[in-house]
């Protein structure tokens, strides 16, 4: 009991201090700890969420990146094939056109040659006739004895033919 007196222990003081502490406890809990802890929790939740969000965004970005490169590759490949096929087609077309032109040219040349041939033949025939007529006429005039017209004509034709053949051989 002397100890209690020495330390000045007094029930009323004790109770007063308990009440003081309870006031502090109540006030701090109500106005400081509860709101601040809630704030801190909310904030950490928010930060966690935003970090997760950022990670998701990054993942999505990566996905998009790979998708982009894939698409680019595909596009490249497609364009390459398109280019190739068009080139092939163009080649074919060219070949076709060239062939067509070639055949046309050939035809034209053939036709021209035929025409030339026919014209020459016609000319040759005509000139042959003329020459025969001229020769026969001139022979008739030169030769006193009238030779048989038809015979003369035949003879002349034969001679001229021989001449033409000779010429042809020469050519």
């Amino acid at each position, binding site marked *: 009991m002397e100890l209690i007196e020495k330390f000045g222990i007094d029930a*009323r003081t004790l109770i007063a*201090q308990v009440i003081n502490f309870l006031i*502090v406890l109540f006030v*701090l809990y109500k*106005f*400081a700890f509860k709101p*601040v802890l809630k704030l801190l929790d909310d904030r950490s939740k928010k930060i966690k969420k935003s970090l997760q969000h950022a990670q998701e965004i990054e993942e999505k970005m990566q996905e998009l990146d790979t998708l982009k490169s894939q698409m680019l590759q595909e596009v490249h490949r497609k364009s390459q094939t398109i280019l190739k096929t068009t080139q092939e087609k163009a080649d074919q077309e060219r070949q076709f056109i060239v062939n067509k032109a070639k055949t046309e040219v050939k035809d034209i040349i053939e036709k021209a040659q035929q025409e030339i041939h026919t014209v020459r033949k016609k000319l040759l025939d005509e000139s042959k006739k003329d020459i025969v007529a001229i020769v026969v006429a001139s022979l008739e005039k030169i030769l006193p004895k009238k030779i048989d017209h038809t015979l003369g004509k035949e003879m002349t034709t034969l001679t001229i033919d021989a001449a033409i053949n000779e010429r042809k051989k020469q050519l």
Partner: protein
Amino acid sequence: MAAEISLAAEPIMTLGTWGVPNSVVTTWIVVIIIVFGALLLRKKRLQAVPKGMQNVVEAVCEFLDTNIQNIAGSKKNARLFFPLVGSLFIFIILLNWFGLLPGVGSIGFYEIHEGREVFVPLLRAGTSDLNTTLALAIVAVIATHIFGMKHLGPGKHLGKFFINPFKRGPIMMGVGFLELFGEVSKIISFSFRLFGNIFAGEVLLIVMTGLVSFLAPVPFYFLEIFVGFIQALVFATLTLILLTMATAEHEEHEKV
């Protein structure tokens, strides 16, 4: 010499039959400061982006929260114990540090006491009065029992102390009584540890100031600031450990 050092807090006024000691006056001042601070915090509203004092409050709360979670184990328990442990820490650290302010313990008057003139300071650090520390210790220990009963149920909690000798043997009954006595010794150790440290610090500062008035006491003031922090931390941590132990399952207790 500046002051006579008395173990007990000196009454400086009377309220009815109760002589209000200077330590209670200091405690009132600290309580008012805390209440004002809390109301200011409420009035300013907490911002999502902290500014100024809110940073300090948040830092303190975070410091307490992480430490409490480390000891309490689960976050649920930590949040349960946070108000009591945090309040104890803040209340004690402010009381400790308030005693270091100039004027506390040195401004006072002389009184004739038992035929002798003694110096009575107007203010005295709240925790250098055994009444205060005893009150806090009693609150802390009672709180451990309340939490224990809430968590385990009254029967199971009280079963730690009152053990049926016919069921579990007389030795276990003796262990139960020892545990009960341990609760009383907890109160005594809690209160005397805090009181002893802070009172000794005050005595040390008075002696140092008496010996060399200038510069020499400065390092000791820093020491006392540190001691004030450490003692608040020790008190709060020990309370927390008691709370954690009280809410732990009995089975775990027995296996050890």
